[in-house]
């Protein structure tokens, strides 16, 4: 850490290691090092406890110091991400404990902010916070993190959690007016479906500047005095942006799969001998393959290939990837199947894929609820019908 203050005397026993009492607006160090040249046994001891450590609290790794303000010490956060941050991101992206991947709401700072520094407002989802602070390396600014229950900016705004009321509450609760002497807040543009700028002005006196959609443009936004290019106001949905969503799509599936697995093997065992364990296993594996292929086609291929599948309705996109994948499944087992069984496997893959692709609408930044409802009213009855026909054909084929 670059800004550590070393104590004047060497040892921590007896020496006054408490924090300097002089009024200093510079960020205060978290830890105080002791010299390591007087080691008697074992390795050198670590630094002494920080004056900011409190019983029952934990200093987080992304905090590099504290800024003294009229409302008390405000954590100064790092503007680069570290291994623990990346690890947390990967775990959240896998859908593990995602709703707990959040930070405490409140005021934070980057650089050396003062009472004229800009205030940026964001959600308390850790990924949102990380995305913002990593783009603020050359800024002196405040970050007001509001309580969106660990949900990202856009979704929280859609759920009325990133709302006018919540921003007003945080302005008061964290006493922002005692920290800055201007009345401007930079809000992410994607909070606009939850926050009403004119209402916020009325209720708090703060004027909203709508920042860019993406945190990576924030430096540009502040440098250009709030002028943004049109491209910064538009959402994108690139291949990379789609791929990172796939693990979360898949993480929803274990639970329904647990219910389907017994059904898959039981149905596959039914036949002329009433029930055959041998059929349950071998035919069950084939049906399971079709199910897995449906997942691959609907929750992986359809999102990845989204703009290149030449139909608009997501259920149709999934149907097309499902047919393609279903043919592969049928081809793999062709030598062991009669045509009706091959058809059943193809239909299963298609129905599963179509349903899952339709569910991906919730993860995209461009589907309207009116449109989703319209396609669902047509698609769901068809998906159910196709799945039922497939199962009837599959079971019926065993009575050949």
């Amino acid at each position, binding site marked *: 850490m670059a800004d550590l203050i070393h104590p004047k005397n060497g040892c921590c026993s007896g020496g006054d290691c408490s924090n300097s009492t002089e009024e200093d607006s510079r960020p205060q160090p978290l830890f105080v090092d002791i010299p390591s040249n007087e080691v008697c046994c074992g390795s050198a001891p670590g630094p002494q406890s920080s004056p900011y450590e409190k019983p029952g609290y934990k200093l987080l790794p992304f905090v590099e110091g504290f800024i003294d303000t009229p409302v008390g010490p405000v954590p100064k956060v790092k503007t680069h991400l570290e291994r623990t941050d990346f690890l947390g991101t990967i775990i959240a992206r896998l859908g593990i404990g995602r709703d707990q991947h959040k930070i405490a709401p409140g005021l934070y700072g980057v650089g050396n902010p003062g009472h004229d520094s800009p205030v940026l407002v964001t959600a308390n989802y850790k990924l949102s916070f990380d995305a913002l602070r990593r783009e603020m390396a050359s800024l002196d600014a405040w970050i007001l993190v509001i309580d969106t229950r660990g949900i990202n900016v856009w979704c929280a705004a859609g759920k009325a959690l990133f709302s006018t009321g919540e921003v007003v509450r945080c302005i008061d609760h964290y006493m922002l007016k005692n920290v800055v002497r201007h009345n401007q807040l930079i809000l992410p543009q994607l909070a*606009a479906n939850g926050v009403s700028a004119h209402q916020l002005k009325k209720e708090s006196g703060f004027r909203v500047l709508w920042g860019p959609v993406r945190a990576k443009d924030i430096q540009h936004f502040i440098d250009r005095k709030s002028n943004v290019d049109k491209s910064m106001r538009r959402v994108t949905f690139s291949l990379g942006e789609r791929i990172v969503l796939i693990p979360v799509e898949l993480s929803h599936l274990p639970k329904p799969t647990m219910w389907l697995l017994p059904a898959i093997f039981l149905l596959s065992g039914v036949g002329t001998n009433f029930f055959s364990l041998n059929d349950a296993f071998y035919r069950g594996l084939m049906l399971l393959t079709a199910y897995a292929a449906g997942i691959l086609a609907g929750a992986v291929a359809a999102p990845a290939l989204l703009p290149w599948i030449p139909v608009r309705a997501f259920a149709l996109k999934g149907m097309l990837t499902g047919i393609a994948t279903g043919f592969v499944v049928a081809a793999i087992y062709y030598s062991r199947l009669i045509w009706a069984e091959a058809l059943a496997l193809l239909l299963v893959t298609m129905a599963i894929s179509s349903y899952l692709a339709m569910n991906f609408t919730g993860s995209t930044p461009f589907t*309207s609820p009116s449109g989703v409802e319209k396609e669902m009213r047509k698609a769901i009855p068809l998906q159910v019908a196709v799945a039922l026909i497939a199962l009837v054909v599959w079971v019926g084929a065993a009575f050949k």
Partner: protein
Amino acid sequence: MENFRYLPDVTTLQLDIEACVGCGMCESVCPHTVFQLRGKKAEIEDLNGCMECGACALNCPTSAIRVTPGVGCASYIIQTWIKGKRGGSCSEVKCC
């Protein structure tokens, strides 16, 4: 987003030109650049680009914009079908 087009002619978005004061807020908040300010009035430039997020209507100081906002999410809509509008919860189905 030009290559990401969803179903056309479904959006509930409406702009009342009479009530528009030309502040340009809708143009700023729309994530799909649906609006364009021409002179002292906003115009709907790309109606079918609308995803009904509701940002424009919420931020229009004269309530000149109407849209039924919502989440374009199949799992959410299934929940509202089963449990009614109030029963639907995005956090339960983890749609986004």
